[in-house]
């Protein structure tokens, strides 16, 4: 998972794609994940970090992350090769 490098991300979870003009909002966990993706964290590192910080079992979060990845892909928010 590599986030589109052009994407403007604010701390409030507001995302703006300057290439298409589309904007989105994500919840605090979504914003945290996107921040980690922007910092180059791998999928495993994100799973480790979130499951340590919050009360969520690894399997559930892996599934949620997969769903989130699908949404990011649908809206062209990931780099093209993803």
């Amino acid at each position, binding site marked *: 998972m590599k986030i589109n490098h*052009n994407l*403007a991300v604010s701390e409030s979870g507001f995302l*703006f794609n*300057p*290439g*298409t*003009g*589309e*904007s989105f909002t994500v919840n605090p966990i979504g914003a945290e994940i996107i921040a980690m993706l922007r910092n180059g964290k791998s999928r495993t590192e994100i799973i480790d970090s979130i499951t340590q910080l919050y009360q969520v079992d690894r399997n559930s979060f892996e599934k949620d992350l997969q769903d989130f990845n699908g949404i990011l892909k649908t809206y062209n928010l990931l780099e093209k090769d993803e």
Partner: protein
Amino acid sequence: MSRPIYTIAVTGLNAIDSPGPGVAVIRGLREAASFDVRIIGLAYESLEPGIYMHDLVDITYLIPYPTAGADALLERLLYINSHEKLDIIIPNFDAELYSFMKLEAKLRDSGIHMFLPTFQQFEERHKVNLSTFGKKYGIDVPEGIAVSDSSEIHKHADKLDFPMMIKGKWYDAYVAYNIEQARTYFNKIAAKWGLPVILQKFVHGTEYNVTGLGDGEGNVIAAVPMRKQFITDKGKAWAGISIDDKKLLELTTRFVSATKWRGGFELEMMKSGDGKYFLMEINPRIPAWVYLAVGVGQNIPEALALLALGQKPEPYKTFDVGKLFIRYSWDMIVDRSEFENFSVKGEL
């Protein structure tokens, strides 16, 4: 150093739900860095809101409709010029452009400058000729056919398929989902705007527009792409955001350099689901949302005025991305005497 003061006449003061570009153009001119202006409004109707915006327009004159012919327009413009000493006219309606283009040389003799497309450019980009235009310049255009009889719709229905766009030669466009709707829209448009009516293949996607300015020698002086964020029932952008889309800017450069476009323009594009751009329309004038371009750093009305005067403005290279325009309506309270003055004397 004092700046020159130019007297600039502007049409399109109908700041209504489907607005003319005049008021936005005037705002750009008033914010010009290189000159000051005296604005002369040119209006066709006594209820065009711009007439009564005295902080923007110094004086407005009624002018005859294009159907009255170029001679009637020339006579009126020369009368206005005798009182106001015009330096520049910026016409902003598709339907009036032809008359102004015809008068360009005559008006120049009277010291009035314009910066308009050539007759060839104007005709070539016409909705009726857009398919041929696309093929000639290698730009994707949805297949379109101009028809003059509603019975012809049936003949082209298989090829274009439904839904199908039904468009007037000047304004108006409807999406028809079956042959009955297509016939109804054909008759509606033909009655209002005349023939032919254009049938165009429907492209699913997101609407993007570019406003820009060509110097007539193939150079882009300004170009700002925008994504429509909110669209009215008439298909007009009521809000939009400036975007940084290299593909759109490349397409604009290709359009300007291939046609050597002279003047302001608006490219209406549709981006399909697979990321392909289709050129839906070329408007041969500045669009009503041009103030977004001014707001993000490209004062198109100012640069156009300079080109009209024979100067060579520096091409704009950058603009702010992610800035929105959000249109609003505003009720002005106008004394009856002002309305009366304009209605009776044709001047205010």
